[in-house]
């Protein structure tokens, strides 16, 4: 197992190199340049040339890449050309917001999706089954951007129950240590901030988690239906085991594998969905930062943030593979 893990960790290197090469190349292939975007309507050829020179954009591309890779290996992902902020520092500062949002979204998706899928499978053909699968279809079909705005409209404007966006209210004073606000507030014993942070998190997490919730519910149902028709389940019933024991100890344990796969894939999807959710809810995470950087041709941010997302992907995939072995003892890694 350890050898397998080490081998998988080592494969991260060529994967990240490949991603860095692709993103480095693609962003530079897009027409339009940083200096022009920065200067906007004031972009005279003279001003643009001067800004490009000052920002080092006139170096040969391969030289820029080698400098980038060399620095990246030392943890330096360069500086934003627009704001001159170190990309690594900004990533460290911003990713907790995205992780907190994505984790909350996947938690909601799991808490609602898995039980819904299980019950739908057990009560196949029932009103609950029809209703939950219909909701799942609706959840998958709704664009997260639209859903987000509708949630704000209902819960913030009409019902005045929840805030429209941000991580905390404008007047809340709080110094976060790790920038995981829920964790920081609990550690500091500041329950007011904890509840404020939770209130601000609910709507974006529900919006972001709606599609994974739907997919996980459907996948759980499919996996359970397949398992429930197996001989050993009939045997378990025949032995007189209670329904609960049959479902949890026998059926669910064997239905986990495809569900774990889907959850792993959804984590990747959450990173891209977070971009839209972060925009609608003014959530200060990596997604929105990345989109703004793409529009502004801010290469270092695009490169750094993409590498980070690729790292998250690879990490989650490894975790999913390891979970397989934990869930199913028959699986062993060479």
């Amino acid at each position, binding site marked *: 197992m350890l050898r397998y893990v080490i081998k998988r960790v080592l494969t991260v290197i060529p994967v990240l190199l490949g991603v860095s090469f692709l993103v480095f190349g693609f962003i530079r292939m897009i*027409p339009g340049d940083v200096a022009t975007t920065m200067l906007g309507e004031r*972009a005279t*050829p003279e001003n643009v040339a001067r800004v490009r020179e000052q920002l080092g954009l006139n170096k040969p591309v391969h030289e820029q890449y080698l400098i980038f890779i060399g620095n990246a290996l030392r943890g330096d992902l360069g500086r934003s050309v627009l704001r001159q902020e170190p990309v690594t520092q900004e990533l460290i500062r911003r990713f907790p917001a995205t992780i907190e949002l994505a984790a909350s979204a996947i938690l909601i998706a799991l808490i609602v999706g898995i039980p819904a899928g299980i019950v739908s499978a057990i009560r196949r053909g029932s009103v609950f089954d029809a209703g939950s699968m219909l909701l799942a279809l609706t959840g998958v079909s709704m664009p997260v951007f639209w859903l987000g705005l509708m949630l704000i409209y209902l819960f913030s*404007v009409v019902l005045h129950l929840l805030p429209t966006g941000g991580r905390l209210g*404008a007047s809340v004073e709080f110094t976060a240590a790790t920038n995981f606000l829920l964790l920081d507030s609990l550690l500091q014993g500041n329950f007011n901030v904890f509840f404020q942070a939770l209130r601000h998190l609910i709507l974006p997490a529900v919006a972001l988690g709606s599609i994974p919730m739907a997919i996980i519910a459907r996948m759980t149902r499919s996996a359970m239906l397949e398992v429930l028709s197996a001989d050993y389940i009939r045997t378990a019933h025949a032995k007189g085991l209670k329904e609960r024991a049959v479902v949890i100890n026998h059926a669910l344990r064997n239905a986990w594998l495809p569900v774990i796969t889907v959850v792993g894939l959804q984590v990747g999807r959450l990173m891209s969905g977070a971009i839209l959710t972060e925009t609608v809810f003014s959530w*200060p995470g990596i997604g929105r930062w990345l989109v703004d950087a793409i*529009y502004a041709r801010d290469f270092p941010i695009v490169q750094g943030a993409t590498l980070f997302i690729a790292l998250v992907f690879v990490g989650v995939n490894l975790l999913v593979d390891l979970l397989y072995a934990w869930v199913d003892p028959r699986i062993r890694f060479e």
Partner: protein
Amino acid sequence: MSTVWKKAFVLLALIAILATAGACAPAPAPAAPQVVVVTATPPPAKVQDTFIFGAQGEPVCLDPPIITDGISSRVTRQVFEGLVKFDKDTFNVVPQLAEKWEVSADGKVWTFALRKGAKFHDGTEFNADAVLKNFDYWRNTKNPLHAAQEKAGQTFEYFKNQFWGFDDASIFAKIEAMDASTVRFTLKDPQGPFLNNLAMFMFVFWSPTSLEKAGTNSCKQPVGTGAYKFVEWKANEQVTLEAFADYWDKPNVAKMKRVVIRNIPNNSSRLLALVTGEVHAMEGLEPRDVDAVKADKRLKLLLRPANTNGYVAFNYKVKEFQDLRVRQAFAQAINKQPIIDKLYGGTGQVAWQFQPPAMWGYNKDLKDIKFDTAAAKKLLADAGFPNGISKVTFDGKEVPLDFWYMPVSRPYYPNPKDIGTAIAADWAKAGINVQLQTVDWSTYLDKRKKGELSLYMLGWTGDNGDPDNFICYFFCLNAKDEPKPEDGFFADKEISDVLKKAAATVKQEDRAKLYQQAEKLIYDKTIRIFMGNNQPPLAFLAGVDGYVVNPTGSEYFNTVVVK
């Protein structure tokens, strides 16, 4: 439940879902459904000591001389002050940290008497030494901090643009402190827009002590003399300021204890935040939401006086556009009024010259060219195009006539795609058949800069309230009178010479006549087609008073009260 009922339930639910999906046809992001005014119970009122402004984006930096964007300047306007500022809702320049000034007869020597008793937020005195140190920071490339900023990738863009350049290349022959409260600028040549340049948001004063301490971290630690001092910048969330108790202008001490400028990039989300009271004011209102805000008693609308112009530009490398009759035909074929009425959200005004009406160089004697499709067709026929135009000769090659519209909403064109489509439709009636084109904003600007756009929409938002900033920026040629690729290879020396003369004249009345003359020449030659001046809308909660809109965006929050 019986099978029949189950099926009926599923069918009904499916119909409901489809109906909802059909009604809510997907719109391309980031478009969002129009906000419908709902008479919901308003949130309970509470005593306000904080004014919260919903901004469209994140500041880039809070060090004024190295910023160029309006979002950053909104914050720095509250923290920093300059020698002069724009007065209330006009382009007029009035004293700020200077009490008064004199200019010599030749327009080259400006002497400013500085205000006594003004303090920086760090407690140090504002005086002539502070003025000199700040000018040195902006102008002197050997100034250690200026050099460090440039090495870090920052640029002093506007100083170069407004004052000719750095070091000895700048317009300043000498800057001296005559005493602790008097500063004298000796210019190499008279500069008509000099005062207006000094009123711009970049040319405001740091505490030299704090600037030295901040170093290249100056973007995050602004210290000025303004009514508000900087407290905190939570990246991607908000900037917090608090009232400066020792503000020199006692009658205008900040009325609200704190100001928060909150970053809400999505226009619909920002409006929803306003409706719920999470913010008290916002910019970046979509044109389609203007009527909803006007109708909502909880909200009110203010229009910023126009400082913009949206135009259609010709590329003079297109052989056909070199004929005045063709350009006039294009201009005469557009029915501007309905476009302004319907596609600017009620905030636009028809334009027929470059300057907005409130500018003192505006030519009141000019009238717009009359919309007349038949006359446009006749002009085209006279120019040798009896069957209209759909292809042109661009840089020697015959190509379809592309008409480029912008992919992003800008203050001067709130709905560029719709406006471009409407213009193309008007042209089609006169036999001018264009192909609508666009690319992403960065590429659009790049192509325009290189002179690759044959016929395109663009516009301008003025920087300093001076006609020079509007017209000379575009129509002043360089010293060799070379054509300007970024302005469609414009190369009219007659217009350029008038504008250069106006820029070097100091007396406003004389300058006004020259700008009016330039506007007439631009109009007679149909150098460009000017579509409209937009008055950007700002929305507020009804209980917000004291906000004074300024055409240059120089808006101070110290007079704002939130009830």
